[in-house]
């Protein structure tokens, strides 16, 4: 049996840039550079490691998948240059403004069309930061979710991992096919090598639109979104605070401040 791994990667605006809203209250992508979400690099890394360790009857193959605008190809290229084998880009004008439920529908259809034994996601996107898509994908695909893993491995037809939860650390196990998400504790992502960057240019990138996935335009996009942002206000700049140079009494001055604010 070969092992088909699909990694879901998102193209996101650079968090160090000045992110803001467009007039329709969706993310304004024009002014900020985009990149492969740093948290999805961890997912690509784990996919490459699992593929490298795989010793089944066939080969392991890593496909990276993104749902996003034209520029999202950059994210796919980066993942390909890290070592993924091929890429799928779901791109359609009608996708503008899609919410998490819509995105999970598109991802689920695209994953099914691509064929998979294991889907690997990042823990959250760095722009939306919802951290819900892996669970939604698992629900839609009807396969187990093994999520928020700081350690992951595939042995035979089983995926195993460690989840550092709020109240406990858990060792998890599920049969393939499954949906996994990995955290930024799972291990540093590799940098693309020069060879990797050159090789990526020749790797196949398949483009799909909503028609290819049998999805009606009305089910996605701003129209199909089930959440509506009614207003977005820039947080008022914090009123400039008091800043004091420590000249030996900084701790005492701070204590007085805390008293004045009734914290002590």
């Amino acid at each position: 049996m070969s092992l088909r791994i699909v990694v879901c990667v998102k193209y996101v605006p650079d968090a160090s840039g000045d992110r803001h809203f467009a007039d329709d209250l969706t993310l304004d992508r024009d002014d900020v550079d985009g990149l492969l979400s740093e948290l999805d690099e961890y997912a690509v890394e784990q996919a490459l490691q699992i593929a490298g360790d795989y010793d089944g009857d066939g080969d392991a193959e890593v496909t990276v998948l993104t749902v996003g605008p034209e520029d999202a190809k950059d994210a796919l290229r980066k993942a390909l240059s890290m070592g993924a084998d091929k890429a799928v880009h779901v791109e359609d004008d009608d996708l503008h403004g899609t919410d998490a439920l819509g995105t999970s529908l598109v991802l689920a259809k695209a994953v099914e069309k691509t064929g998979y034994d294991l889907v690997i996601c990042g823990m959250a996107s760095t722009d939306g930061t919802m951290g819900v898509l892996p669970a939604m994908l698992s629900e839609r695909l009807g396969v187990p979710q093994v999520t928020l893993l700081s350690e992951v491995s595939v042995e035979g037809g089983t995926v195993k991992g460690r989840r550092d939860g709020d109240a406990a650390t858990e060792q998890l196990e599920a049969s393939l096919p499954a949906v996994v998400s990995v955290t930024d504790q799972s291990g540093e992502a590799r940098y693309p090598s020069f060879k990797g960057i050159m090789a990526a240019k020749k790797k196949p990138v398949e483009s799909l639109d909503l028609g290819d996935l049998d999805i009606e335009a009305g089910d996605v996009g701003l129209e199909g979104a089930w959440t509506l942002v009614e207003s977005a206000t820039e947080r008022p700049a914090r009123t400039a605070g008091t800043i004091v140079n420590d000249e030996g009494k900084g701790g005492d001055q701070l204590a007085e401040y805390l008293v004045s604010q009734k914290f002590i």
Partner: protein
Amino acid sequence: MAEVLVYVDHLDGAVRKPTLELLTLARRLGDPVAVALGAGAADTAATLAEHGAVKVLTADAPEFADYLVVPKVDALQAAYDAVSPVAVLVPSSAEGKEIAARLAVRIGSGLITDAIDLTADAKGPVATQSVFAAAYTTNSRITQGTPVITVKPNSAPVEPAAVAGSVEELAVTFGSAATGTKVVARTPRESTGRPELTEAAIVVSGGRGVNGAENFAIIEALADSLGAAVGASRAAVDAGWYPHSNQVGQTGKSVSPQLYIASGISGAIQHRAGMQTSKTIVAVNKDAEAPIFDLVDYGIVGDLFQVVPQLTEAIKARKG
């Protein structure tokens, strides 16, 4: 009056504070019906009724502990079917968000995560969120199905509102997906005796400037003098000085205490994402140019090894 389903986060029957905050918000939307699952579920009832839950639905089965997330979704869905609520509220923990996400897919509803406030008008609940590392505040509503909303800790006060609540056992049938992911081992996190990071009124955090695991004792001493929780930047966690469960920021915990004290932390955007909504922010940093000073209400430019112990002593002296 309309009913609002509230998912209860509890540890062996002890209801955690964010759930009580959720009840405060739920009462703005209707009559809270609480759903408590797993070991000790029935023990939550008295506390929940004191905070306004008109009904508590409880279920206990080995599946809740032995398998990941999905059995709880099956139970919440059973409660949803039994109650037909106007909204479903879930605490914004990692698990809570996953439960809410799967429920939203199942019942065909929109989902809002990490709300920091909730109000209601004739068209239903309006959720306030803080986005782009707290650079923006948004108001959103759900336009399809029954709103499913997860709410961050410290988003509302805990208010007693005693009612004569009833307790009912919830009948749950687990679907085939419920047993898909087995929990083969579980190691509960050891309690430090300090408040829970996400729930604490005061958080005292240390970063790379703390310069060593042993030096975190300075941060802990300050925290203990204030009855605070201890946080850490990712740099401090990655260096192995403090556990990852205490990391504050985008990929750690998101906190919103009354007071946040950052020592030896530069204030990178990913750190700010997890603490910028704190009410009062204080920083100690030896670099006057550190971006954390853009956020502070009060900042000391100085060496934390001087300032923090002096502060701790001054607090102890005042508290006597």
